[in-house]
């Protein structure tokens, strides 16, 4: 069981007029075995926060702790090892898989990262099949190239690849945003099943409040790089405190028509 703790994390980019703050002193915890949802609109910094946690962008301040160990205090090699239990799944099913590698090759490569991976070809193929079972994909998919699969299938392969290194924490960055509504449910159900089966914690990021609420135990609302509200999922949705949260809730299209009950101050 791994916990991810982020403390006063800040990330900056270079803009035309000077540094642009994308993440502004964010403190967040993903307790072991729980799902924390992060919701916000474009430019809120939620994706940047995720990328900072897995080390794709460098923070300019604050710390990321995995199982209590501050990553900043480690050597680069040690840091890479410490990060391994935290894996990420990206939004765009078109670019998250190497177009020149078959599904089987990609999964084998990911399996090779774990020291305990089996040596022989048969053992490796068996492990690939196991991964595909986990994400309920047909074994024959292993021989396919990404371009031959649908968006939903590609997302499942991306999930399988992340699972290959036996992570404890999955960061899902808008994983259903590019999928059709009918397929979204399947992916969300899959994540729910995997969480139960493997005891994963999940940081679930989306701009879709309804999806985040469904998938998460706790919700954080991000706006302009800051977390403006955080709490139990049901509470945040039923009794939001921050005006931005209320505006966000108000804006979610409702089946049956808009109602003016939650006015924006």
């Amino acid at each position, binding site marked *: 069981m791994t916990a991810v703790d982020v403390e006063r994390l*800040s990330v900056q980019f270079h803009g*035309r007029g*000077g*540094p642009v*703050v994308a993440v502004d002193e964010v403190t967040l915890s993903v307790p072991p075995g729980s799902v924390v949802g992060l919701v916000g609109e474009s430019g809120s910094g939620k994706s940047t926060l995720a990328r900072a946690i897995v080390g794709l962008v460098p923070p300019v301040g604050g710390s990321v702790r995995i199982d209590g160990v501050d990553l900043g205090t480690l050597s680069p090699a040690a840091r890479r090892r410490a990060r391994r239990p935290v894996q990420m799944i990206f939004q765009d099913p078109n670019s998250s898989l190497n177009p020149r590698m078959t599904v089987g090759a990609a999964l084998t490569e990911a399996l090779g990262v774990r020291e305990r991976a089996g040596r022989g070809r048969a053992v490796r193929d068996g492990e690939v099949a196991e991964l595909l079972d986990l994400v309920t994909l047909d074994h024959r998919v292993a021989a396919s190239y990404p371009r031959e699969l649908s968006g939903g299938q590609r997302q499942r392969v991306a999930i399988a690849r992340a699972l290959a290194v036996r992570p404890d924490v999955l960061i899902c960055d808008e994983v259903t945003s590019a999928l059709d509504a009918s397929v979204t449910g399947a992916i969300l159900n899959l994540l729910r099943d995997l969480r139960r089966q493997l005891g994963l914690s999940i940081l679930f990021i989306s701009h879709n409040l309804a999806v985040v609420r469904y998938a998460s135990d706790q919700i954080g609302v991000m706006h302009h790089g800051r977390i403006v509200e955080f709490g139990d999922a049901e509470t945040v949705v039923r009794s939001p405190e921050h005006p931005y949260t209320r505006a966000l809730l108000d804006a979610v299209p409702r089946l049956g028509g808009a109602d003016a009950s939650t006015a924006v101050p």
Partner: protein
Amino acid sequence: MVSLATPVPAGFTDRHPTAAFLIRRTARMILLLLVLLVLSFAMIHLVPGDPVRAELGPRAPASAVEQRQAELGLDQPLHEQFADYVSGLFTGDLGISSTSKLPVSEVIAERLPDSARLAGIAFVVIMLLSLTIGMGAAVLTKDGRHSGSELAFTTTTGFFATIPEFVLGVALVYFLGVQLQAFPVAYEPGVAAYVLPVAALSIGPIAALSRIVRVETLEVLNADYMRTARSKRLPARLTYLRHALPNLLTSTLTLGGLLLAGLVGGTVLVENVFAWPGLGTTVVESVVAQDYALAQAVMLLLGATVLVINLVVDLILGLVDPRSTIKEL
């Protein structure tokens, strides 16, 4: 650390993007010009061994060598030489050509106009024809219509675009000059003498450019904003002229700039085929004969011309297309 609560003050560059763009581009050109100056100056000094000996031959008497060295100013310290060089440029003193024994400025002044005329005429011909042919082909083959014409167009232009201008020149000299005796094959006064050299210079670029123009035009014609224009049910003339054409301006200008810069090399080749009394033949002579003063001057001239053309194109582009000024250097 700046938080989003603190507004970032907008500097001059944000308020006046166009002015900033003009300044940036001009400064860049000046920098490149300086580099060119240094390179052309350094040319003599980078020659392995003694350049004067190489020019005069191993058996030249020491006095002649010394005299030539003094002529070229090689006996002075380096920074003084450079100062002399630059000041010479401003006064028009570019040294003496060793092959013709004439002042370099005179040689250039005599030969430049013919080259400039040739290149200039070719440029106008190429631009007019490639734009017309390219846009016409785009309108004709839009949406996959007339696929036969498209194939013919692509094959013909592909073929002619690959033939280098000197080969084309030789072919024209033979077929139209020698066999049919339709046009003169060497320089003589009058318009007729320009026909073959201009044709040799133009045909390749026309073929290459009309392909590009066609592709660019198709891209514009298929763009979403053209669909919006069609949804407004505007008359066809307005749709093409007001909506399509301005978006073609950027690529056309860029092409024009590249073309003009590319004609510099082409003119040299064609002049050598047609014995044209322009700078083209001088260029080769100056290098082969190790005529440093002349080579320096020609290099400077060519380089400066290309740089100025690029700057003018950039500036016009910056004024015409507001989005390009935002892009960083």
